[in-house]
């Protein structure tokens, strides 16, 4: 029976090697990270109390005073207009981009990444200037767009 015990152990160890990849834990489609900076001191964050929404859609942030925000981009479109309301003054920015679908893993499937981020048009009521820090949106680890106010 010794032989079988060995075979049985081998079988068990092989079975335990068959781990299923059930939950998507990898990074998927990244959001656009926008940082708010002080116009006078461009290296410093300056919080802005904001209501933010995409044109004709629900607000994502409501009166949140943050130094950076994350906004989803639509992989099915090549541009999107976001509205930023600061003390009842509303500025809007129309972002343009290209997207590419990338396979991630068995459980996550495909994600989108965005390239060639640009600004088609924008208004300047409370926003003083906008700077694209990184036009390649692959993750959420850094600020892609800087807004100075």
């Amino acid at each position, binding site marked *: 029976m010794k032989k*079988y015990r060995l075979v049985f152990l*081998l079988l068990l160890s092989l079975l335990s090697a068959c781990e299923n990849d059930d939950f998507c834990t990898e990074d998927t*489609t990244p959001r656009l990270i926008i940082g708010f900076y002080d116009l006078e001191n461009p290296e410093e964050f300056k919080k802005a109390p904001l209501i933010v929404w995409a044109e004709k859609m629900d607000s994502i942030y409501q009166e949140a005073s943050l130094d950076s925000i994350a906004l989803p981009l*639509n*992989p099915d479109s090549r541009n999107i207009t976001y509205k930023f309301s600061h003390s009842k003054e509303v500025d809007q920015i129309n972002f343009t981009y290209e997207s590419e679908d990338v396979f991630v893993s068995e459980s996550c499937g495909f994600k*989108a990444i965005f390239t060639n981020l640009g600004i088609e048009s924008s208004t300047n009521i409370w926003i003083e200037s906008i700077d694209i820090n990184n036009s390649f949106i692959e993750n959420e680890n850094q600020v892609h767009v800087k807004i100075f106010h």
Partner: protein
Amino acid sequence: MAFFSITAVAQQKNVSQKDSIIYQKNYGLRLGVDMSKLLIGATDDHFSGYELVGDYRIQKDLYIAGEIGFIEKTSDEDNYNFTTKGSYITVGFNKNTFQNWLEMDNEIYYGARYGFSSFSQKVNTYTVFQKGTEIEGVSSAYFEPKTVDLNRTYTNLSAHWISFVLGLKVETFNNLFLGASVNFSKLIGATEPNNFKNLYIPGFNKVYVTNSGVSFNYTLSYRIPLYKK
């Protein structure tokens, strides 16, 4: 586990067999078909395939063994759907550990295989995975999810692997065998499609995260008897 206890009984009985006559065994080429693949193919729209199995007895308890097969399978995952199509061949040996009484010729065996598959992967459709956006405490998709009918086929893919096999064969009528076996496999290498992954490989079955796989077969086979020894 039932197989193992049967063997234990068989070994005890051997003691009284010392002065009995030697029963000769049939040697020959045994060919068969995996009935489970035919059955699954008949009931599941997303699967079609067949597998032919064969072995050749070279010693009383040692066989050269192999399988060839063809599989076309569509796998439906949460956010995508793909079709794998291809053929495979495996070669190796089976070693019988079952001590037969009298002229019986049953087997409980272990064995090893080297497997090779040539196949294609076709990504049919997918929906881009985008985490929900939280609005007033409820997380949901902010945009209508993007779904693509890609229908892109990656051809000329191949993979090779090694397997450890456990199985049994029972002689039901003269030279006609019913068998079942399980293969535990580990990928050695594979050509991966660009912007996709080999999640299923014909002959290997589903590829788990550790590059391992399990497959089964239930066979009906016939031994063409060539000589007795």
